[in-house]
């Protein structure tokens, strides 16, 4: 059975330069919409593999993927490790708390050490914007940016967009809002309105998602209080709003960002209570905003959630919620990227 399904797998061209000329994935900025669709196609195949009883491929046997995480992360790191292992690669992990990073070794030296251990690909998460680009310039190994400061988190954006891509595709097949016409993949996002609400200023997820969704043709609105959504965020080409209820009207999807509770101590908002009242996602809010059309937007959250703060528990667990789907798609997207970056040769 596994053998039969691997036909699909062979559908992916091997041996060619699969992600443009890139050895790295540093940000959405570098990707064209064609690149993104190519990643989605690959991810769809990967997702099928994840549904199999035996989730293991020999494709990347003999390849090594190093994890270099300078910020606490469980889900992203495990997602990458699962993706690499499913493809047959070996995984090495540098957890900052147990490595020589604590002895004052520089980022560059640590990364060079990983490279000297002959890892083909290094997945890096770092609190400084540009850490991934910095390593990419200095190393021959491929780099995947798993989140750099407040700059980009491209794999999160790709998995979010892939989740919407699947849903919008299903809606199309079901004739929902698309008059039964099967639209080509490339226009699935055209005219879609997607709202991202929360601490936009400090969010790499918001930046990468805005770039990704707009590149696919969607309209993106950022929503948050002025302290977390200053006017310069218009640089991303999005609509800015401080009013969630108005912005939710006609939205096809809404993404709530995790609120870092320590921002309140820095005075960026007066209290969690006031924040939730203004910007918390609830079922009632979604229903009211869309009472005219009766269609409720899809709900995404990059996790981990503060239930009852940026998202209401009932909503998080509802049918509209894509949150668990996002996690599964995260593994598929990361498999696709690892494959496209180092599976070629």
């Amino acid at each position, binding site marked *: 059975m596994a053998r039969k399904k691997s036909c699909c797998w062979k559908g992916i061209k091997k041996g060619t330069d699969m992600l443009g000329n890139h050895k790295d994935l540093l940000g959405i900025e570098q990707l064209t919409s064609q690149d993104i669709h190519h990643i989605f196609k690959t991810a769809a195949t990967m997702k099928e593999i994840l549904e199999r009883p035996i989730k293991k491929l020999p494709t990347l046997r003999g390849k090594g993927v190093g994890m270099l995480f300078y910020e606490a992360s469980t889900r992203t790191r495990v997602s990458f490790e699962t993706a690499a292992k499913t493809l047959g690669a070996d995984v090495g992990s540098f957890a900052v708390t147990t490595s020589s990073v604590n002895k004052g070794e*520089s*980022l*560059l030296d640590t990364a060079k050490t990983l490279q000297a251990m002959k890892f083909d690909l290094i997945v890096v998460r*770092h*609190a*400084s*914007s*540009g*850490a991934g*680009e*910095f390593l990419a*310039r*200095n190393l021959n190994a491929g780099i995947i940016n798993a989140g*750099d*400061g*407040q*700059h*980009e988190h491209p794999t999160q954006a790709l998995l979010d967009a892939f989740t919407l891509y699947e849903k919008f595709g299903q809606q199309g097949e079901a004739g929902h809002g698309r008059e039964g016409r099967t639209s080509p993949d490339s226009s699935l996002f055209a005219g879609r309105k997607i709202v991202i609400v929360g601490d936009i*200023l400090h969010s*790499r997820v918001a*930046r990468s998602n805005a770039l990704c969704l707009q590149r696919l043709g969607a309209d993106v609105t950022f929503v948050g209080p002025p302290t977390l959504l*200053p006017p*310069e*965020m*218009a*640089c*991303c080409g999005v609509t800015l709003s401080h009013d969630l209820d108005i912005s939710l009207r006609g939205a096809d999807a809404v993404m709530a960002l995790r609120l870092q509770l320590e921002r309140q101590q820095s005075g960026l908002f007066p209290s969690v209570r006031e924040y939730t009242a203004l910007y918390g996602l609830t079922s009632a809010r979604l229903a009211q905003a869309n009472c005219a059309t009766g269609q409720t937007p899809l709900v995404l959250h990059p996790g981990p959630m503060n239930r009852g703060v940026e998202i209401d528990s009932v909503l998080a667990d509802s049918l509209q919620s894509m949150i668990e789907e996002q996690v599964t798609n995260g593994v598929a997207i990361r498999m696709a990227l690892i494959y496209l970056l180092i599976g070629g040769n």
Partner: protein
Amino acid sequence: MWLIKNVHVVDPAQDLDAICDVEFDERIRNIIKHNANTQNTLPVDADSPDEHTVSGRKTSEAAPSGNTVQVIDGRGKYLFPGFVDVHAHLREPGREDKEDLASGAQAAARGGFTTVLCMANTQPVIDNRGLVEFVINQGSQAEGARVWPVAAVTKGLKGEELVNMVELHNAGAVAFSDDGRGIQRGQTMLLALQYAQLTGRPIISHCEEDSLAANGSMRRGPQSARLGLTGIPAAAESVMAARDILLAEETAGRLHLAHMSASATVTLLGWAKKQGIDVTGEVNPHHLIFCDEDIGLTDTALKVNPPLPSAADREILIEALANGTIDMLATDHAPHTWEEKAQPFAEAPFGINAFETALSAVWMSLVEPGKLSVSRLVRAWSLNPARRFSLAGGSLSPGTPADVVLFDPSHTRVIGEGTWMSKSTNTPYWGKPMHGFAIATWVGGIKHC
């Protein structure tokens, strides 16, 4: 004895902008201006000894004789009074791995500077007489530009207790500054502006309000938002400039604004001058040449404090320098090691190594395109700083010490190891060709580089 012939002298102090022959030993001895007639016939004169050479010798009889005269043909070149840089970090004592007083003074001389002021934010801080004397002693042995210390305003740069200003001034400090950080308490600044009047020396204000600048690494704006780097609002500088200007008015103190980088600061300085407040301002070449849009995530060579301005603010700074609202240029020469700059942007230290590229950069980016006249360049980088800080130099008037720069506008160099004197290489120009350099610098008549 040196004789520079047929050279274009620009010396605003004497209102001189003409082809001249200049003769000097340790002091300027003679400047013979070619009359319009001779100037017109220069190409013919080039072939044979001519009358103005003769007249030069004749007048030189007044000067001490017995030395051989070394003659340099200055055709196509400029002779300027040596440049005076009022803002540099020479890192000694404490961080001699980045720079020391000797390498800094030599790099300065190579760049065309004959006098530099070094800031007090060393380790330990230059806040006592011993260290002021140490800087002067090391500087005098450096075989480069003259080095004068700027002493701290407050002990340990802590922004609390004033240093012994009179004692440090008597030891040789030429100004006071906590440069590297802003003095946060208004009362401390007020007392400093009052007490420094005993010395007649200015307080140099590093205008930065800490809570506004907190943890930022570039100017706040669309580019910082795009890159995900924490922004420093322009107001972090301007609110402090406003405070210090009002305190200077309140105390009738002497104030100098370091490294101005925001248009509002320019407006405030213009206003202060109209009020008759005793305040001057400086701008760094990088704030006139680069802007926030030039910054990429790995360009730590462009990470500087105050941060690079918006493109619009940059134009206002250029205009203010050209029209004299901003009094002077200063490099804010800030050497850092390669290792420190080879980090992600937010973690790399602030600063640009500038002595050996600053003059060429300003020449190429501002003088050649006609944004800054040659005489304004000399006024802003030699005459005005010398006057404001009561330093020797700033003019080629006969009898003054021969701090002289021979500048070749077409001399080209690729910035790199071959000619580099500084101990550090943190410049955005590394590996790039530049033109317009000091090809000889004399400090008190002694030729360097």
